[in-house]
Every structure is written in structure tokens, then in C-alpha cells.
């Protein structure tokens, strides 16, 4: 316990009572907005708080100051304002004891040398940021100490503190008021209340649990050893301690926990971590390989297949944004042996804790070019950054949208013209699909109804035909053709009355209108064109090329769906010109090696034939 309080101190003027105050500080004292009604009162409270081990900032805080700017004053200044000369700390004995109410968080963790360490640590993490927020996780027992300090003050200076408990500024706020600006200067970044870049300081205090143990006796039901890992086996959390203390009246508290709070015997430790809010990057991918899985395929720790769509799409993105983790999601997925043609499949990459985030539209376009130059198996278009909210549109479209496919089929008998007509006449055929055997091990067993909206069959040879289908999303096409042991019904075998099988499958279109188109959308000779909005664009400079074997490099005037500003803002060199054209006869020849990747990067005017000559 501190020395007994001299009750006769009265502060004004030199040599009043047994203490001397610096007269000049009276003016400064006036600037504060405190609970007390006179300078003498303020100095009395301050002296008491000093005697129980409070640091200058906590003195100001517990006196009721709540103006952020007041906390710009250094602790030395505050000492000179509130304390008599006899109590001023000399330079040699600063920081000998952590403050009893903030545990040093407003002392050694709020001074220049700590700022330097903090800034050094943040810079070492190598993030690119222009504004930041600071978060503090404080030891739980700080709540107990704050309560103890208040109970003590109320006991000593009752009138001043009636009804004031809620109005005392928190350690967290005071740290931000005092340290926010100098730290921001060091980081050359703007300090904000909310920013996407977060500097998190976690303060741990070894005695924290010990100082809370008295609560176990008062509220054994609230505080029990937690068995769930979820809570990190913590008995005392900020929430339950704050809650319990709110229900404890002051006299009860006084009986159980020392008031004022005792001087801490150990110091707080502080760990600093940096985190940037996730960034989302969306686009569409086309896949031209039949030996490429969507995600890395690993069986018992061994690669079953080299590469994956995920890796090919993400590698360059990761090098650019440098996140610590990432996740690719897409609007559905295709099998390893299925190609994704047309405009591609919408996808989003969630970049968790990215180190670089600010990129211009041009830089993203350049990133897309790098991805496309790195591989010929996968091509990306419409690459753009999007907000978290927008990404929901990706999954919304998964169920109710339609998909278009080209299936290469075999039939045990030769197809007749009547067969072809019969298939083409089918509209909105409802299939009953039992969960396919190939996914039955990981999917619920059920019979699902899926609709084939339309079909068009085209004979390629006596036993082979190409089937173009538009179906509801979620239809298993392979099973529709081969029947999956009769578990999909009706199926092609039933429709044709002869065994059918599927040899190859291409996805031609995933009709999800998201993300917005950036790269030009080539016109299709179908009703889809009507959906596209006409956009005046400087790319409209050539007439449509009817030749199916020609690489589609020109854009039809009505083919571009994009808001005009994105088109203008992003004069993306046309990467899509190497897309497969929509001609039905292109796909059956040498599917995998038709795309010459080098052409994209080097020369957009190239007319590399994508499609085989028919």
C-alpha cells in the first residue's frame, strides 16, 4: 500500500502545503475537460493515483478526459501539469514499474522506441498499404484492474465519481489517440478507424488469469474450465469477465479483489501481426486440355496429375498480390477430361492477406496477359477485382442457370435422319438422375430431376455423332448419354433404342452474367446475340469473318456486352481472339494442341487457325 494520503495538500502556487507545483501549468490544466471541479481537486486525485502506481496517461484518463487531442501531450508534460515537482520522474527512473491500471500499455508500449519497433516490424512484413487501422487485444485482467481503480476512486472521492464509470476513456482508445498520429507518421500511411490493412497488437500478461480467479468463487457457474477447443480452453474471456463485473456491486468487489489495483510484478508482452483484408479477383477461364483437373489432384500425398486449372490461373495472381492463402471458386466445375470452351467459366479467387492490393485496370490487364502467356491449356478473360458482396453472384447462378455442351457420342447402330430429327425435336425433357456412381461415394444418394432444354444431333460418321445440348445446371451429361446402368432415365440409349456412349465432352457456355465482360464478346449466330447490349467501341473496325476456320479476331458490333466505361478504361489488347469459334464442326479435330500460346503475347493480329479444317 502507498503512503497515507496527506489530506492538506492544496495545489496552487509555489510551496503551498508540503508540495510545490509549477504555476505555469494552471493554464494547461484549464484546457482539460475533467470530472473534477477545481484544479486543487484534480491535483488531489492525480496525486492519489500517482501514489497507487498510475502512469500519467492513466491519471488523465481516470480524471475523465475524453478529448483525443489532450492525449497528444507527452507523459512528461502531463506529470508536470498534474504532479508536484517532488514527484516528477527523473530520466533515470522512468518505466521502472508498469502502471497499475494499464499494465504499461500507455507507457512503454506508447513511446517512441516502441513506435520504432512497431514500424520496423510492419515494414519487415512488406505490405503495400496507404492507410491502416490499429487493433489491440488487451489482457483480460485489465478490466478487473480498471474496476479496482474506479472502486478505489469512488471510495476516496465519492462525489466526483458518481455515475462516471462508463465515461472513463478506455485504454484502447487512449492508445489510439496518443499513438495513432506518431505511428502513422512513421509508417507514412493514413491512420483510420476502419481500413483494410490492420496492425494487430496482442498484449499478453502472465498474471491475467491469476488476477481473475476470485471470480471463480463468486460465479462458479459462469466460470468453469472450458472443454471445447473453440474457446481455446479459456476460462476468462473479455466478454464473461466484463459481464460478471457489471453485475458485481462495488462493496462485494472490494471484498474479493484488492482496490486500488496492486502494482504489477510482471510486464506485458506485445506481439504484432499485420493483416490485409481479403481481395477478390474474378474472371472467366477457358480450358483446352483433357488431362487437367480443376484443383490439384493428390492421392496419398502423390500427384495423380501434373498441374491444375487452379494452379495455372492462380500462380501469376499470387505472384502479383502475394497473399498468404488463396481459394479458387467457380460457377460449377468440369471433369478432368472435359474442355471448357466458349467464353469460359466464371471464377473468383479469394486472396487472403494479400501484401499488394492496389492495381490499375491496366495492371490487371497485364496480369491477365501474363497468365495467358504462361500456358496454352488454360486461358483467362475478363479478369478484374471485385468486392466480397459481388462474389455471391457467382454461386447464385450455379443452380438456376443453363449450360451448353457439345458431347461426342457413339451409338451401336448407324444413326438415321429420323433419329437426328427425333433428337432435335426434343424440348424441355425432364431427366431423373440417380446420383452417378462415380460421385456416389461423396454425394447424397438421391434421384434428382434435371431438364434438358434442347438438343441438336449431328452425324459425324456412321456410328458417331455430335450432340449439342442446353441443359439446366447440375445435369450430369455423361450419365445422360451412357445411362449409368440405367440410373439416369430417360437416357440416350433409351431415346435411340440402342446402346450409346460418350467419348468426349466440351462445355460450350456457362450462362452466368457475372463478372462483367471486359474483353470483347464475339457474336454468336444464335439467339444469344439478342441478349448482348450493343456498345459503341473503337474495336468495331472490321466486318465479321464468316470463315469458321479463321481465328475470331474481329468483333461484331453487337457482340460486346460491357459497360462502356470499362471498355474505355481498359483498352485491353484482345486476348480472346484465340478463342474457339462457335462453328460446330471445329471441335472434333485434335482438340488439345490447337492453340498456339505464343501468339497471344507476341502478336494479337495473328490468325492462327484454332479449329481444324473440316
Amino acid at each position, binding site marked *: 500500500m502507498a503512503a497515507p494520503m496527506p489530506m492538506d495538500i492544496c495545489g496552487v502556487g509555489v510551496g503551498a502545503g508540503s508540495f510545490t507545483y509549477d504555476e505555469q501549468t494552471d493554464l494547461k490544466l484549464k484546457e482539460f475537460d475533467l470530472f473534477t471541479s477545481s484544479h486543487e481537486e484534480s491535483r488531489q486525485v492525480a496525486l492519489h493515483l500517482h501514489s497507487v502506481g498510475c502512469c500519467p496517461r492513466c491519471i488523465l484518463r481516470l480524471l475523465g478526459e475524453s478529448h483525443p487531442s489532450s492525449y497528444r501531450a507527452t507523459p512528461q508534460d502531463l506529470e508536470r501539469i498534474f504532479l508536484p515537482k517532488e514527484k516528477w520522474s527523473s530520466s533515470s527512473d522512468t518505466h521502472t514499474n508498469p502502471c497499475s491500471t494499464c499494465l504499461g500499455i500507455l507507457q512503454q508500449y506508447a513511446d517512441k522506441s516502441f513506435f520504432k519497433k512497431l514500424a520496423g516490424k510492419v515494414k519487415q512484413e512488406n505490405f503495400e498499404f496507404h492507410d491502416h487501422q490499429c487493433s489491440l487485444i488487451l489482457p483480460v485482467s485489465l478490466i478487473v484492474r480498471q474496476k479496482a481503480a474506479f472502486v478505489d476512486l469512488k471510495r476516496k472521492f465519492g462525489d466526483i465519481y458518481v455515475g462516471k464509470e462508463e465515461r472513463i476513456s478506455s485504454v484502447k482508445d487512449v492508445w489510439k489517440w496518443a499513438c495513432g498520429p506518431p505511428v502513422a507518421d512513421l509508417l507514412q500511411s493514413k491512420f483510420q478507424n476502419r481500413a483494410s490493412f490492420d496492425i494487430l497488437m496482442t498484449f499478453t500478461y502472465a498474471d491475467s488469469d491469476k488476477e481473475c480467479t476470485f471470480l471463480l468463487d463468486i460465479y462458479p457457474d459462469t466460470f468453469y474450465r472450458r472443454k471445447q477447443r473453440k474457446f481455446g480452453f479459456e476460462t476468462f474471456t473479455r466478454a464473461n469477465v466484463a459481464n460478471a463485473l457489471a453485475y458485481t456491486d462495488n462493496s462485494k468487489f472490494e471484498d474479493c479483489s484488492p482496490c486500488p489495483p496492486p502494482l504489477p510484478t510482471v510486464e506485458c508482452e506485445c506481439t504484432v501481426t499485420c493483416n490485409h483484408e481479403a481481395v477478390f479477383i474474378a474472371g472467366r477461364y477457358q480450358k483446352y486440355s483433357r488431362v487437367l483437373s480443376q484443383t490439384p489432384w493428390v492421392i496419398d500425398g502423390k500427384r495423380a496429375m501434373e498441374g491444375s486449372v487452379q494452379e495455372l490461373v492462380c500462380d501469376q495472381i499470387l505472384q502479383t498480390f502475394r497473399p498468404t492463402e488463396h481459394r479458387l471458386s467457380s460457377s460449377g466445375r468440369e471433369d478432368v477430361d472435359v474442355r471448357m470452351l466458349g467464353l469460359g467459366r466464371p471464377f473468383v479467387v479469394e486472396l487472403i492477406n494479400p501484401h499488394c492490393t492496389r492495381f490499375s485496370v491496366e495492371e490487371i490487364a497485364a496480369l491477365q496477359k501474363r497468365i495467358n502467356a504462361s500456358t496454352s491449356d488454360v486461358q483467362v478473360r475478363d479478369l478484374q477485382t471485385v468486392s466480397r458482396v459481388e462474389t455471391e453472384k457467382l454461386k447464385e447462378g450455379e443452380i438456376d442457370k443453363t449450360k451448353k455442351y457439345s458431347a461426342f457420342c*457413339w451409338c*451401336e*447402330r*448407324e444413326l438415321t435422319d429420323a433419329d437426328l430429327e427425333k433428337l432435335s425435336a426434343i424440348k424441355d425433357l425432364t431427366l431423373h438422375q*440417380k446420383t452417378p*456412381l*462415380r*460421385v*456416389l*461415394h*461423396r*454425394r*447424397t*444418394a438421391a434421384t434428382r430431376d434435371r431438364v434438358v432444354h434442347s438438343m441438336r444431333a449431328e452425324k459425324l*460418321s*456412321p*456410328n*458417331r455423332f455430335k450432340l449439342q445440348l442446353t441443359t439446366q445446371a447440375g445435369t450430369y451429361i455423361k450419365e445422360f448419354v*451412357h*445411362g*449409368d*446402368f*440405367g440410373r439416369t432415365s430417360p437416357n440416350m440409349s433409351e431415346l435411340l433404342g440402342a*446402346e450409346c*456412349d460418350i*467419348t468426349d465432352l466440351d462445355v460450350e457456355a456457362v450462362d452466368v452474367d457475372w463478372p462483367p465482360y471486359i474483353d470483347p464478346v464475339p457474336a454468336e449466330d444464335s439467339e444469344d446475340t439478342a441478349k448482348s447490349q450493343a456498345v459503341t467501341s473503337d474495336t468495331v473496325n472490321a466486318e465479321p469473318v464468316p470463315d469458321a476456320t479463321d481465328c475470331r479476331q474481329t468483333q461484331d458490333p453487337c457482340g460486346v456486352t460491357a459497360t462502356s466505361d470499362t471498355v474505355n478504361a481498359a483498352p485491353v489488347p484482345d486476348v480472346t481472339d484465340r478463342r474457339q469459334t462457335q462453328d460446330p464442326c471445329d471441335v472434333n479435330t485434335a482438340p488439345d494442341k490447337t492453340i498456339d500460346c505464343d501468339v497471344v503475347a507476341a502478336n494479337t493480329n495473328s490468325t492462327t487457325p484454332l479449329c481444324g479444317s473440316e
Partner: protein
Amino acid sequence: MAETQQSTNLEKPPPGVVERYFKKHFRIDLKGKKYEDQVVLTHSNRVCVVCIAESHPICSEKKEVIKVDFEVKGSNRMDNKMSGKAKRGAQWLGPTAVLCEVTCSDESKYTLYCCVKGQLVEVNENLITKPCLLTEKPLGAGYLAVMLPGLKHFDKEIAQLMCEEKYKKALEERSTNVS
């Protein structure tokens, strides 16, 4: 294959679904009854499709199946409710559990078995309305049931079945014994 067209006009069929995705494993002379063979098609994802083997008298003697009954000894194999990815509630059956009884037009009756230990995921209900599927497409639409052995037991269960090579040898031995 029932291909009746001119051979010049015909293409070699591509490997079928069974060849592409499944391996065949057998149990022969089930319960000691001569030639009563069954085949289990195993997928790499451990799904097992239980079928009748072509060497089974029903097939080899070209019998006409008139009834397939999944109600055995008071418990109905079709009475199999399950939920979720884990197929909770599905009947766990052993390799010798009876799957169904088949009645042929010559009044002969045969009992078919599960062949592997696992969850009964599905029985082929089409066989009830179209029993002829059993002989028309024994390794296709005429399958009997789908079984799913436990993740840890799959390899062990399959090891207890006869591989295709041994099965063919067994068939050869049979024909030499007969002659």
C-alpha cells in the same frame, strides 16, 4: 453386341462404361451351388455394383426371368432409408447376405447375394417391373445393387473376391471337367 450392319460400315466400338471405369471381381459357386457365379464391378471410388455373372445358369442357360424379389426372410432390401453423404441408416450387409430371389419361367428359383460387406446403397428397382433386364444387360441396366464398403475395409473386402484372370481359369477348368 447386336450389330447387324455391314462390317465395312461399322466402327470399332470404344471401350464401354464398364471397361473404362470398373474392375471386375467374382464370387463363384456361391453357397456351394454349382456355377452360381456373381460379379462385382468396383469403381476406384470404392462403389461396388453387384451383378449376375454371365456364367450363372440364369444367363448361360438363357432362362427367362419372370420375377425378382428383394424381400428376403422378412426384411425387404428395398426398405432401405438413408440420409446424407455418409448414407446413414443404410443396411450394413455381409458378403453372404441374401440380396434377392429370382424366379424363372421354368419355375427354377435362384438366390443372389451381396458378395461384399458394406452399406447397401441401392437396389435396382427397375428389375421389379422389367425382370428381363437381368439377362438382357447383366452388366448394365440389369445390375442388382450398389454396395459401398467402408473406407478402411475396401481393399480387404475386394481381396476376398476372385480376380478376372482366376475367374477365366476357373471357367476353363469347368469346361474341361465337363468334357
